[in-house]
């Protein structure tokens, strides 16, 4: 049965069956071939997989980012970032990074960032004389900050499938790694800009400009405060935070007169359809993940890993390497849902904090979004910027190195992931 499951999964994946279906089909056929399990169990797992209130944070955060984008606040964030760091060496590159960090506080997705603010700054960089592949590579790299800084859809998905980890806790765990990621990319951008002579804007923004830019961006900057503040002080659950944030974005759009009725309807429909594509994967992956657990594959894997070593750090490195390879070939979301129940138990039995493991896995798979052959963020940037994937992949190498260094830090120093959540009482 295990063989049928795994072979069919990879076969359908390679033959370009939609990823959600690959897991459902492999699971279903394996159940029928085995004959001992009731096929209804597949349907039951599929339903149970998405029957979770914390998971309902996903549609709300998608809706929220749709509404905020419709409000035109991306431009205000861009102006704010430009006023802050535009004058530095490689200024627009730093603006790109800062905007992604700020946008990450509104949206929980790397693809939303890549298609939104990152694509805009990429165009600005090219107009300012940055080499087009570097502009694209930096935009792709900065987009990966989206799922690390809270809110994060990947964090929600990890938390709901791991006992003892709350969505709020994992959100907080992402703050330091997210900032580190931004800093690492800023250092890389500084080095590249020095080498190629990319300069910042000639004059530093005046205080008046800075103040007016901050005021314009304030409505967008308040959003992360609502989400995090609400969760931190126990005012609402992450799901409710998503709903409140969406209500705030809705109110903002009405005040700013940014919506037409048609636009609003489209935003809701689009958010619902994107949610559907996510939940379909979560539902189908639940069949697959349940079967893996039923077949005791995680236990077998754990046994063979602990035979090699029982050192905590070494085990985390092995798991990270495994996840990194998976992230190269499997799309982020399905990889996360499949790997969480397989690798998680190995990590926890070795005494690794679930928050640290979760952060490592999310960061690891997010980095996989900018690496070929399966790098969804690269595809978006290549399409928007009309770049060749090969050239883009080469240009991203120094930035990838910066991201891998952050991953290395997250693996070796547990405090980077656990300090903030523990400080606010989200210990396990």
């Amino acid at each position, binding site marked *: 049965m295990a063989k049928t499951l795994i072979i069919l999964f990879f076969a359908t994946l390679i033959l370009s069956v939609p990823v959600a279906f690959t897991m459902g089909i492999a699971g279903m056929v394996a159940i029928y071939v085995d004959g001992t399990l009731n096929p209804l169990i597949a349907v039951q797992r599929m339903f149970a997989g998405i029957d*979770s209130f914390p998971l309902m944070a996903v549609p709300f955060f998608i809706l929220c980012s749709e509404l905020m984008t419709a409000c035109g606040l991306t431009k205000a964030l861009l102006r704010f970032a430009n006023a802050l760091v535009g004058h530095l060496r490689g200024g627009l590159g730093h603006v790109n990074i800062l905007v992604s960090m700020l946008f990450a506080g509104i949206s929980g997705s790397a693809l939303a960032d890549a*298609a939104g603010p990152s694509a805009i700054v990429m165009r600005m960089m090219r107009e300012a004389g940055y080499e087009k592949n570097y502009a694209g590579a930096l935009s792709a790299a900065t987009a990966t900050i989206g799922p690390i800084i809270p809110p994060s859809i990947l964090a929600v998905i990890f938390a709901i499938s791991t006992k003892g980890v709350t969505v709020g806790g994992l959100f907080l765990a992402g703050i330091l790694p997210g900032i580190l990621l931004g800093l690492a990319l800023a250092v890389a951008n500084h080095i590249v800009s020095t080498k190629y002579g990319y300069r910042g804007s000639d004059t530093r923004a005046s205080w008046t400009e800075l103040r007016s830019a901050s005021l314009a961006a304030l409505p967008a900057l308040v959003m992360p405060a609502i989400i995090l503040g609400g969760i931190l002080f126990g005012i609402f659950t992450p799901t409710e935070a998503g709903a409140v944030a969406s209500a705030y974005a809705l109110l903002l759009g009405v005040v700013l007169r940014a919506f037409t009725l048609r636009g609003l309807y489209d935003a809701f429909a689009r958010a619902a359809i994107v949610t*559907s594509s996510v939940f379909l994967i979560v539902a189908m992956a639940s069949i697959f993940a349940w079967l893996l657990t039923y077949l005791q594959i995680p236990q077998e894997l754990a046994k063979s890993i602990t035979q090699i070593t029982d050192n905590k750090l070494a085990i985390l490195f092995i798991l990270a390497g495994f996840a990194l390879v998976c992230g190269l070939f499997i799309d982020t979301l399905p990889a996360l849902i499949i790997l969480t129940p397989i690798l998680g138990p190995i990590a926890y039995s070795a005494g690794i904090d679930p928050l640290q493991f979760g952060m490592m896995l999310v960061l690891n798979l997010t980095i996989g979004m900018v690496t070929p052959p399966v790098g969804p963020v690269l595809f978006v940037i290549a399409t928007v910027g009309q770049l060749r994937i090969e050239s883009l992949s080469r240009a991203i190498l120094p930035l990838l190195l910066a991201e891998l260094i952050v991953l290395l830090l997250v693996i070796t120093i547990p405090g980077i992931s656990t300090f903030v959540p523990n400080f606010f009482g989200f210990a396990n």
Partner: protein
Amino acid sequence: MKKVEHIIVAVNHAVVAGLLAITFAIVFMNVVGRYGFGISFSWVEEAARHLMILASFCGAGLALREGRLVTIGIVSDMLPERFSVMLRWAVVLVMFAFMIVMCWLGVQFVQFGWNKETMATGIPRGIPYMSIPIGCGLFLIQLCFFAKRFVARDFEYDAGTPPTGEAS
């Protein structure tokens, strides 16, 4: 036929957008109720879950049309066009067969859950379970209309949005 397809797509859009709007409204209302008026309803969580599950299954067909069902296309991109088209027709058939099985199992699942009650609202569990056969059925209808365009990769998405789901 074009008109029928158009109507089905429009209704499908309205249903998923409406379900999300209702879910959003009741969850937000519960937060306001809790802090503004000191009341909150225990049925909200359950209703929110079940409405979104219905929206998710009903939206699957639309996700297909908009090219949001992510595929890994390396092999089909490498094949000569003729074989690539054949492969994509095979994918359509595989999806069709799988959804028929899911629809059929979904109906059995509804019957199975009919005499069990949900925790908060006390309705038969079979009612929320109906999301599966309804959603799979809708997907099958959408697939019938869209199969040819799916094979030609002629997806419909709005300008500005990437060709994959923006969720990860």
